[in-house]
């Protein structure tokens, strides 16, 4: 590998990173394009096929007349594209069906979409708030740092589960039934906790860097403070930012699933991997375990987390030019 390879080139020389990035890309595209793909309506009940086991045959079916009419009437670009591309064809419930005969594949894709959105919100909040608070605190050091970090401690000591319960109860009491309002409150609560690890790690790193010789050298050259911060401090914080992100995003994904599993997060008709696991758990019984209802959302979550971890590791290594290259 030549010395002049950029971080992106280094990243994609790593086979496991390529695979992880490919998986994440496909999953994201599927989640974002769910309305274009010929998936069954996640809410369509069919009691004639309750608890159907996963299977590959038949792979495709034709929409029922009722569903076809609904699709034909659906406004917007995505259903139009779907009609043009796939007509009345629909993918069969390859992952099996649930207690109401709803297609688990279609439901998993929708659940995945919401889980990914939660992770994206967490990542953005973490990057914006966590990096700003951490870098500011570490760079200023001294009393400012002590004050800011006590504030971070305070934010960290808020019992999030209770806040979520309060928020959900408050929404119920106030008669707000709009499911999207609940999702917004839920995401805002997730965002509240997600930035703290980032702030702590970035602050520690900035504190160590600010007294470093290359910052002194920058000052001696007469650079302005903004120039030093944006061109020398922040680029050196990128590796630790990636570490913090790769710690935070999977944690938030799990936390979202956990809360939804407990019934405190996403609620029907919205779907997340957590609510799917919850209904799989409810359908579980020793005589007829119907394990696919638990396994499908569980495996989806595991694949997502693994891909995120592998990619996070590789990105961190690629962003740090000091590491030896194989």
């Amino acid at each position, binding site marked *: 590998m030549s*010395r*002049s390879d950029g971080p992106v080139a280094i990243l994609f020389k790593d086979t496991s990173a390529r695979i992880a990035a490919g998986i994440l890309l496909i999953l994201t595209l599927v989640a974002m394009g769910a309305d274009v793909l010929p998936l069954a309506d996640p809410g369509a009940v069919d009691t004639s096929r309750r608890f159907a086991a996963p299977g590959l045959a038949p792979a495709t079916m034709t929409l029922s007349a009722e569903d076809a009419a609904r699709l034909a009437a659906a406004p917007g670009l995505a259903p139009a594209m779907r009609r043009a591309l796939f007509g009345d064809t629909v993918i069969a419930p390859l992952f099996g069906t649930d207690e109401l005969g709803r297609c688990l594949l279609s439901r998993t894709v929708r659940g995945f979409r919401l889980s990914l959105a939660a992770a994206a919100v967490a990542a953005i909040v973490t990057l914006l708030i966590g990096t700003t608070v951490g870098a500011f605190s570490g760079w200023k050091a001294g009393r400012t740092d002590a004050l800011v970090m006590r504030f971070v401690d305070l934010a960290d000591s808020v019992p999030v589960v209770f806040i979520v319960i309060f928020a959900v109860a408050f929404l119920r009491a106030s008669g707000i039934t709009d499911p999207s309002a609940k999702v917004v409150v839920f995401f805002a609560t997730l965002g509240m906790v997600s930035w703290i690890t980032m702030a702590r790690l970035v602050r520690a790193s900035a504190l160590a860097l600010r007294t*470093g*010789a*290359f910052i*002194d*050298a*920058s*000052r*001696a*050259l*007469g*650079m302005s*403070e903004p*120039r030093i911060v944006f*061109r*020398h401090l922040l*680029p*050196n914080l*990128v590796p630790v930012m990636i570490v913090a992100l790769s710690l935070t995003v999977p944690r938030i994904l799990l936390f979202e699933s956990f809360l939804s599993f407990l019934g405190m997060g996403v609620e029907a008709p919205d779907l997340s991997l957590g609510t799917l696991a919850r209904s799989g758990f409810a359908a579980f019984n020793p005589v007829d375990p119907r394990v696919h209802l638990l396994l499908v959302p569980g495996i989806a979550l595991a694949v997502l987390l693994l891909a995120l971890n592998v990619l996070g590791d590789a990105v961190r290594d690629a962003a740090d*030019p*000091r590491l030896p290259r194989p």
Partner: protein
Amino acid sequence: MTVALEVAGVSVTYRPGRDDAVAALRDVSLTVRRGRTLALVGESGSGKTTLARVILGLERRESGVVRVDGIDVDADPSRVPRDVRKRIQPLFQDPGASLDPMWRMRDLLIEAMDVSGSVPPSMRPARIGELLLALGLADDLLDRRVHELSGGQKQRFALARALATGADMLVLDEPLTALDPPAQRAAMDLFATLKRDRGVTTLLVSHDLDLVRTAADDVVVLYRGRVVESGPTTDVLGTPRHPYTRLLLASVMPPNPAEARRRLAALPEDDAVADPVPSGCAFAPRCPLVVDACRVATPDPKPIRDGAEHAAACPVSV
């Protein structure tokens, strides 16, 4: 001969805690003439590095004046004029750490020219080529980052960046400690060349007396933040007058082990407790020549003869 760097009456006090005060520098004065090398020697904690940082405008001083080419260096580091910055540049003890690990060498050199405004963009490639030639660096190193360079190359790039600003004054802080012996040899030759060919004025901070003897025209000896002796290198290191300078010279290991042991046994221990602001001579607790007067009044440096450049702050030996 014109004065390139002037330091007069500089004092710095560190306050690590609410009631602690450590006087790092007390009433330090010195001048460096254009094209000359002045060495600042003393043991760890003597204030050499603090003085270097004050001169570079990296450390706030309490009182005193610093002038670079006659321009006042503001006591507040954030207000030091850019005009001063591009005249005097540091070479840090660990040159590798002074180069941003994320940046390629070429970009670091261009940035130095950009920030100092020393070279217009169209002239930069030519100027970089000229600097590399002068410092004995190969062109293909420009695309490397600092971890891909050897110790000597790191130091040369740190020097190249310092010179890229157009600076003709350098502050070298222990410039040989990060290098292996062959690189030390090469670095000393390089400093000599810079001085001869470019007339670079140098403030050399070091406790390496061999380096000082070879490279410096003048010497200032610091002890606990005060100048105890100063003058031409041959005088100060050849016929030291202050008891501390003598002790410093005696601490250098002679090649003969028996002689080394004898000298070590004869050295007084440094058992003086860290006294925030001791009255009298700071060296008095360790001094073999101490008299009562030393503990009362702080001696000022005095010429050893009328009109001599060699001065020592010791009432007993001068």
